[in-house]
C-alpha cells in the first residue's frame, strides 16, 4: 500500500471518531433526563421563552429527526446562539480560537524542548544527579494540579519577584497595540510586521501561562523519553553500532534517539488530551481570552449552546492533532507503512 493510501486510510479513520463526537454531544443535550428546551433557554428564561426555544429548535419532533437537523445545522456552521454574548456561537469560538491555539502550541513546544533533552540526558547518565532530577521532577509534576502550579508561578514571579507582567491576557493594551491579524497568533503576526516591542510584550504575557500548561505535559514526555532511550541504548542494534566503532554521537542520535522517538510520539496523544483540558484552567487563571475561558463562563451561566459548541470544537481539534501525530509516526517508522 503506497504512502498516499495509508494517509488516506488514516484520514478516513478519523471520520467515525468525528461522528461519534457529534452523536455524543447531541445525546448529552437531547437524550438525558431533563428538558432540552430548558437547557437551551437558560436559567433566566420563563415559561414563554422556553416554549419559544422549544419550537425554534424543533424539540417537539422525534429524536432521529432532531439529530438530522442538528447535524445539518452544524455542517452549515450554525452552532446556535450564545445567551451571554448574544452572538452566534461559531463567531465567538472562531474569534477566540487563535488565542487558545497559540497558548497550547507554546506550551507543547516548551514541554518538548525541555522534556526530551532531559529524558535523553537522564538515560545516558543513568544514576547521576540529572537522572535523579529527571525522575523526581516527573513524580512531582505528575502530582501537581495545573491550576495550583499556575497560581504559584504568578505569586512567585509576578508578586514576589516582579519579573513577570500582570496576568491580564495576551497583551497589555496600555503599553502595546495588537498586531494586524494575519494568522491570529500574536507572536507570528508581530514578528511578520517587524513590531518587535509588541513581540516582546506578547512573549512576556505568554511566558507564565505557557510554562504552567507545559509543565503538566513535561512529566509524561520526559518519563517516556528516558524509558525509550534506556531501551534503545540497551538494544541489540546499538550494540552492533558500537561494535562497528561508530562515533558516540552517531550511536546516540541516529541509532538510539531516532528509535526512542517512536514511543514518545505514541504518548503525545495522551499528552494532548491533558493539555487541551488543562488549557481551560490556565485560561481561567491568567484571564486569557481563549475558548477555554469562554467555556468556563458559559458553564457557570448555563449557556448551553456555547458549552456544546466548545466541546465540539475541542474534540475536533483533538482529533486533528491526533491525526497529525499519527501521520508523523508513519513518516518516522517505516514498519507502520508496511502494516498499512
Amino acid at each position, binding site marked *: 500500500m503506497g504512502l498516499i493510501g495509508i494517509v488516506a486510510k488514516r484520514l478516513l479513520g478519523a471520520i467515525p471518531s468525528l461522528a461519534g463526537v457529534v452523536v455524543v*454531544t447531541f445525546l448529552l443535550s437531547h437524550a438525558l433526563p431533563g428538558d432540552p428546551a430548558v437547557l437551551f433557554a437558560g436559567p433566566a428564561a420563563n415559561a414563554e421563552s422556553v416554549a419559544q426555544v422549544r419550537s425554534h429548535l424543533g424539540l417537539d419532533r422525534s429524536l432521529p429527526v432532531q439529530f438530522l437537523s442538528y447535524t445539518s445545522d452544524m455542517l452549515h456552521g450554525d452552532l446556535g446562539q450564545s445567551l451571554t454574548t448574544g452572538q452566534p456561537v461559531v463567531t465567538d469560538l472562531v474569534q477566540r480560537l487563535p488565542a487558545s491555539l497559540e497558548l497550547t502550541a507554546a506550551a507543547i513546544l516548551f514541554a518538548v524542548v525541555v522534556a526530551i533533552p532531559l529524558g535523553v540526558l537522564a538515560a545516558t547518565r543513568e544514576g547521576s544527579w540529572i537522572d535523579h532530577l529527571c525522575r523526581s521532577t516527573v513524580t512531582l509534576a505528575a502530582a*501537581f494540579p495545573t*491550576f495550583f502550579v499556575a497560581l*504559584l508561578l504568578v505569586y512567585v514571579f509576578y*508578586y514576589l519577584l516582579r519579573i513577570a507582567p500582570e496576568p491580564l491576557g495576551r497583551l497589555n493594551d496600555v503599553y502595546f497595540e495588537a498586531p494586524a491579524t494575519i494568522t491570529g497568533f500574536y507572536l507570528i503576526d508581530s514578528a511578520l510586521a517587524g513590531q518587535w516591542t509588541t513581540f516582546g510584550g506578547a512573549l512576556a504575557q505568554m511566558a507564565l501561562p505557557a510554562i504552567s500548561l507545559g509543565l503538566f505535559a513535561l512529566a509524561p514526555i520526559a518519563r517516556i523519553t528516558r524509558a525509550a532511550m534506556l531501551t534503545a541504548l540497551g538494544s541489540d542494534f546499538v550494540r552492533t553500532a558500537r561494535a562497528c566503532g561508530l562515533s558516540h554521537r552517531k550511536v546516540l542520535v541516529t541509532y538510539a534517539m531516532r528509535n526512542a522517538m517512536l514511543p514518545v510520539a505514541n504518548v503525545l496523544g495522551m499528552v494532548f488530551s*491533558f493539555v487541551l483540558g488543562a488549557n481551560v484552567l490556565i485560561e481561567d487563571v491568567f484571564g486569557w481570552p481563549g475558548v477555554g475561558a469562554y467555556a468556563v463562563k458559559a458553564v457557570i451561566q448555563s449557556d448551553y449552546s456555547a458549552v456544546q459548541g466548545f466541546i465540539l470544537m475541542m474534540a475536533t481539534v483533538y482529533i486533528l492533532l491526533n491525526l497529525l501525530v499519527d501521520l508523523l509516526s508513519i513518516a518516522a517508522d517505516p514498519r507502520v507503512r508496511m502494516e498499512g
Partner: protein
Amino acid sequence: MSATTQPRPPRSLALLRATRYTLAENQLTLVACGLFGILLLCAVFGAVIAPYDPLATDMASRLKPPTAAHWFGTDALGRDILSRVIVAARLDLGMAVSAVAVSFLIGTALGAMAGYWGGLVDAIFGRLMDTIMAFPLFVLAMGIVAALGNSVLNIILATAVINLPFYGRFARAEVNVRRDLAYVEAARMGGNGGLRILSGHIVRNILPTMAVQASLNMGWAILNAAGLSFIGLGVRPPTPEWGIMVSEGASYIISGEWWTFVFPGMALMLAVFCFNLLGDGLRDVLDPRRRT
C-alpha cells in the same frame, strides 16, 4: 466442596511477607502509607480534629497570615484555613473514591465481558471507549456536568465516565490474555457457563492488577474533581473543598495573601502524591511479575 477451596494460610502469609519486604525496601512507600493514614484520619474525624468550626466567619480577623492561633492563617471571611483544609479532605477524597469505585466496577465489568465474548460485544465496547477517548477528557467532564446539572453528584458521575476507558481497556486486555489459559478451559469443560467462568475464575485473578490501576487512577480522579470545582462547578461556597478554596484564594495573590491558596493547593498535591506512591507500592506487592 473442600477440593475447590484454596489453602488459606500460606497465601496470605506470602502476601504479608511481600508487603513487609516492599515496605522495608522502599521508604517512600512507607511515607506514602503514613500520609494516607493522615488523610484518612482527616476524612473520617475531620470535624473533631479541626481546631475551629470550618464555617464560622470572623470578619475582624480576616486575611490574617499564619500565626500560632491560626496555623494556616484565615481567609477572606475570617475562617480558619487549617480547619477548612482538614474538613475538606472528606469531600475531596469522597468524590474521588466514589468516582473511582463507579468507573472501576462498571469499566471492569464491561471490559471483562468484551474481552471474554469478543465479537459484537467487543466491537460495541471498542466504539464506546474510542468515542469517550476522542474527547479531551476534562472537556468531556465539563460537558457532562453542564448537561446534567451543577451538583456534586454530577461531578462524581462525570469523573467516573471519563475514567471508564482506563479500566475497561485494561480489564479487556487482561481477560483476553487469560481467556484461553488452561484453568479456564478446565472450567469450561466442567460445564461452567461463560458468565460463571468470568465472575468466578477470571475476574478473581485480574482483581489485584485492577486494584493497582485503581490506586494509580485515584490521584488523577482527585485532580479532575478539584479542577472542576476550581472553575466553579459542583461545589458551592461555603462548603470547604480544596479546589474551591484555591479558587477563592486566587483572587488574593495580587495583594500577597498567599496562604489563602497555597495550603489547600499543597493538600491537593500531597493527596495526589500519596495515592501515586501507594499505587506504585501496591504494584510492587501485588503484581506477581514484579515480585522477586
